[in-house]
């Protein structure tokens, strides 16, 4: 385990060495941003709306006491979305969608000698392949999380209209009540860290692939599994530190 950790840290060090030519790296960063951001927008939107709706319905179901105002469902759904569902669930989904793509892309390049070709040319392969992915991860995951929060809250509103468990006015009132900006900061810190975890761990798994197609698949699986575990661990740590 310590050997893997050492290799991971050394790979990250290599990834952030000075680029051979900034313009070439910049192009790669833009391509990765489009791939991570625009490419994941569909799945993140669908998940966010449904989770937001389901959360609101469940909270409304549990608010059986007449002493508790119905608008509280909006507040609970909002905070649940901001603090947990949008950053964590979105990141777990992104680990599957983006992380597996990173690991398999780099792993395929490894087993087909494309990484060797880069190194022969004198290109810092970790820098060229991994740093754009990490930059894309730490910038686009927070953006996706912000979109996810908005859509999650919108999903809750739609659930109110469709089911009638809570009136939309109560829901909106709850969403506006007692909002604390700290929750957004926590969500963005989580998203930043999760983006880094997904990009770096999956790239690491891909970079050290050896063998053939079977091993590329195994690297992608390992990348997703490790990313998910570390996302959940980091979620706990950030939550306990910041809240």
């Amino acid at each position, binding site marked *: 385990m310590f050997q893997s950790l050492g290799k991971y840290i050394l790979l990250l060090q290599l990834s952030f060495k000075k680029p051979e030519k900034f313009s070439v790296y910049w192009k790669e960063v833009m391509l990765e941003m489009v791939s991570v951001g625009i490419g994941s927008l569909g799945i993140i939107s669908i998940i966010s709306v449904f989770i937001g709706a389901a959360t609101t319905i469940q909270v409304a179901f549990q608010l059986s006491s007449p002493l508790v105002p119905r608008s509280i469902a909006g507040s609970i759904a909002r905070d649940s979305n901001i603090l947990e569902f949008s950053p964590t669930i979105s990141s777990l989904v992104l680990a599957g969608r983006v992380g597996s793509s990173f690991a398999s892309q780099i792993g395929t390049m490894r087993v087909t000698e494309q990484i*060797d070709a880069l190194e022969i040319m004198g*290109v810092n392969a970790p820098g060229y392949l991994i740093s754009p992915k990490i930059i894309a991860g730490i910038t686009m995951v927070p953006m996706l999380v912000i979109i996810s929060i908005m859509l999650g809250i919108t999903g809750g509103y739609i659930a109110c209209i469709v089911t009638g468990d809570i009136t939309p006015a109560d829901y909106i009132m709850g969403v506006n009540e007692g909002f604390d900006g700290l929750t957004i900061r926590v969500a963005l810190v989580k998203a930043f860290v999760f983006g880094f975890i997904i990009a770096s761990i999956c790239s690491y798994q891909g970079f050290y692939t050896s063998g053939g197609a079977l091993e590329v698949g195994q690297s992608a699986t390992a990348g997703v599994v490790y990313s998910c575990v570390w996302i959940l661990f980091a979620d706990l740590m950030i939550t306990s530190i910041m809240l």
Partner: protein
Amino acid sequence: MIEVKDIYKTFGDNEVLKGISATFHTRKNNLIIGGSGSGKTTLLKCIVGLHEPTKGQVFFEEQNFTEMDFTERVPIRTQIGMLFQNSALFDSMTVEENIMFPLNLFTKQSKEEKLERANFCLERVNLKGKNKLYPAELSGGMKKRVGIARAISMQPKYLFVDEPNSGLDPKTSILIDELIDELTTEYEMTTVVVTHDMNSVMGIGDHIIFLHQGQKWWEGSSKEIAHTDNKELNDFVFASKFMQAAKSKL
């Protein structure tokens, strides 16, 4: 000129190279031949720095390549072109982008100049007009030629070729061999080719090193190879019925 001195390479308990020393001459096709598992590709990867030798040194024009770190190696690496066994073209790039890739990173040429160089290289390997194709759209022989075009785009001093004929039909193999031979003369390169193809050996083998069980077993030219009394080399060279028939006519 490239010189390797007493190279050893071990993977775990498996000692693949056992003290190989050799000199690879400029303007010559230096062939490393041997059976499967003899250590040919490992030796090639030790020379270019993809594997670090367990012991021994590699010199490029008397510069100790083995002792250099990654950054110090870059000036030498920009003078190296390599054709990989499976061509190793970048899947996400077109033919033209593949060839321009090293130029983009290591030169200050304008886009027009880089494009002109890419077109020249493509023309040189008889692939004029294939600029916009992706590697997945190319045949095996075309991939090899694009690999060669990419390898020569920076006008290298050293060309390394790993199994240039693998997966190719005999006619295309000969074309690739001829291309390597012509480019070696044209660019005055030190060319090192790893192969077990006897057509290549007899066709372009100016200087041949035969590896057997990780050791240098024999060294000579294509003219000398048919007349050696080295048993292991004879077993390798005359393994096919075609070569046996050719030998009986010698």
